[in-house]
């Protein structure tokens, strides 16, 4: 039983990190209908910036974390301005490919830094003794990660539901021309969407970096791993990202816990999310919480 509980707890921890990573996708998609494949790279850069500020510059870790959020906020805004602004209104494939190109470019830039080929790890700043709840344990790093995730996700859902600017962002996603007609500045909204996505990516990067250490391969693989989560959640739903993130976290833990090692199966956690994603999509073609296009013939 405690084995099961531990899997559940770990699943939720990993899931909430997925959710936070997925949140960036959702924020961008929700206002600009762009799916950003370079998100993994932004996550990685957020993580590297935190590290550089903390270790090389010597800024205290929490401050470094907040600063990296701000830097990445503007970084992502710049990326949007530079690369995506021109592509407003182009077909999906162009937009997908631009973000793929962006992925390569960011890769290249990161290779220019020491982070490209070397490994680092954050200095410990939280107690290393785990928190025990009965037999179930969770590390401080993970706990802090979950709390930050919860705060950010809560904040953003409130923002989209309740504030006029939040509604305006959704409005832009719906109909750009109409949004412009009532005075919404579409470019600003897109820039803001990327900026906030960059912010969440940096947060996710900081958390993941603390858990796994700073290895570029591992960090930017998160970008791809989060895909099934984003799609499962339905691309434009924050709630969907959270639910799907936790589902995927649990699936991976259970797959690792109960399937691997039996019946000759191995690393099922790598493939199971995709299989489950396919099955769910066939039942619900717009993911669990995705908006159905309202089509009138």
């Amino acid at each position, binding site marked *: 039983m405690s084995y099961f509980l531990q899997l559940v707890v770990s699943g939720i921890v990993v899931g909430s990190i997925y959710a936070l990573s997925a949140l960036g996708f959702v924020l961008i998609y929700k206002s600009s209908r762009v799916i950003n494949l370079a998100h993994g790279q932004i996550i990685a850069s957020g993580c590297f910036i935190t590290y550089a500020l903390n270790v090389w510059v010597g800024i205290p870790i929490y401050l470094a974390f907040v600063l990296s959020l701000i830097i990445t906020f503007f970084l992502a805004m710049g990326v949007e301005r530079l690369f995506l602004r021109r592509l407003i209104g182009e077909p999906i494939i162009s937009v997908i490919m631009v973000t793929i190109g962006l992925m390569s470019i960011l890769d290249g830039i990161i290779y220019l830094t020491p982070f490209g080929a070397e490994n680092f790890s954050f200095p410990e700043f939280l107690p*290393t003794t785990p928190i025990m709840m009965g037999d179930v344990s969770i590390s401080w790093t993970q706990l802090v990660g979950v709390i930050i995730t919860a705060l950010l996700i809560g904040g953003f859902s409130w923002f989209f539901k309740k504030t006029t600017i939040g509604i305006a962002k959704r409005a832009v996603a719906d109909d750009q021309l109409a949004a412009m007609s009532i005075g919404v500045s579409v470019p600003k909204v897109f820039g803001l969407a990327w900026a906030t996505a960059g912010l969440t990516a940096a947060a996710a990067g900081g958390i993941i970096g603390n858990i796994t250490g700073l290895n570029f391969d591992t960090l930017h693989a998160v970008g791809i791993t989060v895909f099934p989560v984003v799609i499962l959640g339905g691309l434009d739903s924050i709630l969907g990202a959270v639910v799907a993130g936790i589902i995927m976290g649990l699936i991976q833990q259970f797959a690792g816990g109960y399937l691997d090692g039996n019946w000759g199966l191995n690393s099922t956690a790598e493939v199971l999310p995709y299989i489950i994603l396919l099955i769910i999509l066939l039942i619900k073609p717009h993911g669990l919480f995705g908006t159905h296009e309202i089509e009138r013939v």
Partner: protein
Amino acid sequence: MKTNKKVLICYIAASFILFAAALQPAAAQTYKIGLSLAITGPTSDAGVPYSKGVEDYFKYANDMKLLGDDKLDCMIKDDAYKTDVTKRNFEEFLDQGIELYLNYSTGSTLGLKKDFEEEKIPTLPASFHAGNLDDSNYIFLPIVSYSGQLIGLAEYVTKMHQGETPKVAMFIHPSAFGRGPVEDLKKAVEAGLNIEIVEVVEHGKDLDNTAMLKRLSSKGVQYVFCHTVQSPVATMLKDAQRLDVAASKFGENGKMTFLGIHYTGGNDLIALAGDASENFFWTTSYTLTSEDTDGARIQLEMAKKYGRDDKIANSHNYTNGIMVAQIAVEAIRRTKAKGKKIVRENLYEELNAMNGMNAFYPVTTVGPVTYSKTDRQGVDTLQLYKVKNGVFRSTGSTFTSEYYKKIQ
């Protein structure tokens, strides 16, 4: 005036030709060697220091005139860990007329095996996969294969373990590289090695290994043999620390001791795992810069000379690269000393003769390189290291794996 000029030009040209012809027999030769490896893409964290090691040692050989006036030209090409590109690089090297080839990944070594045979070109890979040697005559592993290393580790465990049969799990990379030694270890167990392999885990890109560690711990696993790259090991060690399942000293009861072979260890692991790497056991055939040895001194000097930063200077993959270059230089030196032409066949012969009295003692390894027609694994000697206060320290004396010889 015009005619004068023409005459002058003719004269200069003629004298050049004569001069060149006169010099021809004594002219310094350049021997070409090719290295294709992953400087970018996956495993580049190992590939980069490796390439520097190779590059620096060949430079060193040229600067120190180890081959007299003859020069070595080692072409290094990036293949980003992709077999297709490796093949292209290899073809290019052949077009350039290389006499010796250095390869990197397991996948490409297996994929190009047939080409090595057809071209009859001696090849030194960075992959110590035992399968490289099957149906192949031209691949020379610099040190003992992963299987040999792993069985050596297992023998160490049986020797040091107190109590009943030690329960062991394997934590491996999900690829040919990772899976290579699994079967061999099982064979060794059949041949009488006293361990019980409880589970073989292929890791994914997991952010969390809780499930796996809990499961292993519930099955009573005491030792985890790692054969992968550093990053997943680091994540696992951190999780183990958090779950409080990591042993604080070798073989601690009810806890798990983590051990790994060549590509799992080194400074990168410590960099990634931090405190959690404490007490990690690691085996390889190389000397480390954290220990005071001749090899370490020479390595650090060389790194300084060619302007490498500390990280590369102290990397065991830098050592690894220096090592293959040493073998290559030595083979050429010996061939030349015998007055033979530096061509593939002669180099091949010379490599195969590197045994017994003729064994080669590189500075950066803990034992000699021995090759023969039947044994194409270089250094058979292993040294066990352990992380103590954030550095790898050797524990115990060097050893070789007995069961590995038995199962071959």
